């Protein structure tokens, strides 16, 4: 350990580590002053698109880095963002990107087919040792609000950084570990919310001021077979064990959506998710958010499989966990690499119509000896968070 003087929590005075994002004793949010060793993640360079307001002096689509050759014909891409030979629009980096921090964790985030901007965002991180520790974050920008593409990416990265900085304690009984991670998810949601509010550069007299940037939040921390998840809105986390294993596939999160409220009232999932206002969310991050405390939960993984976080751009086409398990079995038949699978799931969603932006974040969990006892399932002990 370094010889620096101990840092204390401003809330309760307990000693905390410099990289802690919240106080383990009272839950007070802290600003980490250093990053946990070995967990600094390399930022994917992404050029953000900006909404252009007021006088349109330049083509908004022209803001593009044009160094890469045309993806369609290999020709030169012009300064206006289109190929000089075939005219195909060069994708902006923000429109499609992947993350691959280790051999067992990856994410793919894509504009989809119908939307003209990618307002989804992913941010993932992991230790290199498979199964040891990973963070998956998905934020889905609300497309009716301004600059949601900027807000969602800022939120996802802020949340990831909080969760990465939160050092695994490795102490105590599993229940206290879950509680600690649930607390860190709340801190992550709070930081993500702050990032979304910061992304709002509208003035009170701006006509767009009543429509501030906003997004969903879903984060998963995987730690030695323990998964703790939290969500605000309708981006989801699933545990999809490999087919033939002891465990059943399960949707871990519960949407904050009108559809979910209807399901709770007895309407079938299929009907609720295709009904009116199916995609209206009841909780979100942003300046106008009434409540951004995530609903948290946990599960202990048994057998080998995939922990998946995704936006509705994917689950619109494959909502049931069992269907997702079949799909993943088909798409990952030849390999257990997370990046090809994430890309394949995104491509599959686009083939289904790609009506929304699509985000998929994956962590591979491997257990060589599936001699487990009892079925795995969501543990709702901490559901509701600590608000």
């Amino acid at each position, binding site marked *: 350990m370094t010889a620096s003087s101990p840092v204390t929590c401003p809330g309760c005075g307990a000693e905390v580590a410099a990289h802690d994002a919240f106080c383990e004793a009272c839950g007070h949010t802290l600003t980490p002053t250093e990053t946990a060793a070995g967990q600094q993640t390399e930022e994917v360079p992404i050029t953000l698109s900006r909404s252009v307001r007021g006088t349109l002096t330049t*083509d908004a*689509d022209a803001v593009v880095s044009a160094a890469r050759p045309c993806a369609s*014909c290999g020709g030169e891409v*012009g300064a*206006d963002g*289109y*190929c*000089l*030979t*075939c*005219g*195909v*629009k060069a994708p902006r980096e923000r429109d499609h990107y992947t993350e691959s921090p280790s051999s067992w964790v990856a994410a793919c985030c894509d504009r989809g*087919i*119908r939307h003209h901007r990618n307002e989804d965002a992913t941010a993932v991180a992991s230790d290199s040792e498979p199964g040891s520790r990973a963070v998956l974050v998905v934020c889905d920008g609300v497309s009716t609000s301004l600059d949601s593409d900027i807000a969602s990416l800022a939120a996802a990265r802020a949340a990831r950084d909080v969760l990465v900085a939160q050092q695994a304690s490795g102490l105590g009984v599993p229940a206290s570990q879950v509680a600690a991670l649930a607390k860190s998810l709340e801190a992550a949601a709070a930081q993500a919310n702050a990032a979304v509010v910061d992304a709002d550069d509208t003035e009170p007299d701006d006509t767009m001021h009543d429509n501030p940037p906003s997004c969903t939040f879903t984060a998963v921390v995987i730690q030695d077979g323990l998964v703790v998840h939290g969500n605000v809105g309708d981006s989801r986390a699933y545990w999809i064990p490999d087919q033939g294993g002891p465990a059943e596939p399960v949707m871990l999160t519960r949407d904050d959506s009108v559809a979910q409220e209807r399901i709770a009232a007895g309407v079938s999932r299929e009907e609720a998710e295709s009904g009116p206002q199916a995609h209206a969310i009841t909780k979100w991050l942003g300046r106008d958010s009434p409540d951004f405390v995530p609903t948290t939960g946990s599960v202990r993984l048994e057998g080998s499989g995939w922990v998946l976080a995704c936006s509705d751009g994917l689950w619109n086409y494959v909502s049931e966990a069992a269907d997702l398990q079949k799909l993943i079995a088909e798409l990952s038949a030849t390999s257990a690499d997370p990046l090809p699978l994430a890309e394949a799931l995104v491509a599959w969603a686009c083939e289904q119509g*790609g009506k929304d932006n699509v985000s998929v974040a994956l962590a591979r969990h491997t257990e060589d000896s599936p001699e487990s006892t009892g079925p795995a399932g969501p543990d709702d002990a901490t559901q509701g968070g600590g608000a």
Partner: protein
Amino acid sequence: MAAQFTAKVYQNEFLPDGGTDINAIVTVDCVGAGEAGSSGGGAGEIIIVDTSGSMGSANMESAKVAASAAVDQILDGTSFAIVAGTHQAYQAYPITGYAGMVAMDANTRAQAHRAISQFRADGGTAMGAWLTLAGIIFDTVPALSQKHAILLTDGENRNETPQQLDAAIASVTGKFQCDCRGVGVDWVVPEVRRISQALLGSLDIIPAASQMQQVFAELMQQSMGRGVADAQLRVWSPQGAEVQFVRQVAPTVEDLTGRRIAVNPLTGGYPTGSWGDESRDYHVGVRLAAKDVGQEQLAARVQIAIGEEVVAQGLVKAKWSDDDELTTRINPEVAHYTGQTELAEAIQEGLAAKAAGDDATATTKLGRAVQLAKETGNEEATTRLKKVVDIDNEETGTVRLKRSVDKADEMALDTASTKTTRIKGGSSS
């Protein structure tokens, strides 16, 4: 200040599944053009006056006044010359015995006035010879970057075959621009239109000799206000696509499609001549290979180039969609100018049919013109059409040919057929 060009695109970029044809209106604005010759190289002006016998003494006197008025508008320092035309062409000024131009100053202006006063109406009409001589005179000052002429005629081109006239036009196309005016009713509109269109100039009738002075002064003034010597419209289209047409649609309809000069394999250049502070609209049609729903691509880059420098660009896009609400939307600017282009054709074809004695076709075409003028809000065209046809129903285009028509009114309808109005309350300004 150097001239500033801007380009704005009006289009519906959405194509249905399998759709291939994209239409766009591109409005090009120029501000800060400055005076003629200000872009370097200098400006040259030649005034070509019909001095054939048909002018008679009254028209001749008016033409002298008009030519002198034009001379008065030429800015000092501008190279100029005056051509008198009959069945032959004479360099009336400078009186040097050989082809040449002089710089305008107080002295040369006074000499030019005296030379003009010597005009006498005599002989025939050979406009091809006049244009050829103007070309030779401009060639004596190769440094000129901006070359413009005004041509006045009063009669049919009797002393040359149409082939001779065409050859003469072809030999000077691209050398100088020429605005053409016909005085009275004895000249032939389509004949003179061939000159004005090829030489990127305007065409109009001067019904009464007394109006000549004002018309000439204004024409020269306008030319002196064109500080951008030459600009080229460029249309890039993607590999495998076909540019179906390129038209100027405002202030007048001019089909530029056939004037394409290859800039590179994917880009065609179209001459637009000199520019003052003004706005012109272009209609571009491109046929693409259909792409999948959800795909987006560029259908055309529409550019303005001065020399080799592209100074403004508008992007014409194509996006394939299965949303009928988007794909069936008709862009108002495109619809407006499609109608105006058809209006010009209907008037010209109707008048040609009428001249050939085919009253049935004339009635149908002019009826359609009445309908289009109404639909596109071209009130000037409606007013002119009313002098040639009696309108029973504007909406359906039901008309009857008037029994007696003032020839000047019919010619005015013809010369003005290509003049367009801009969309009402629309975004093109």
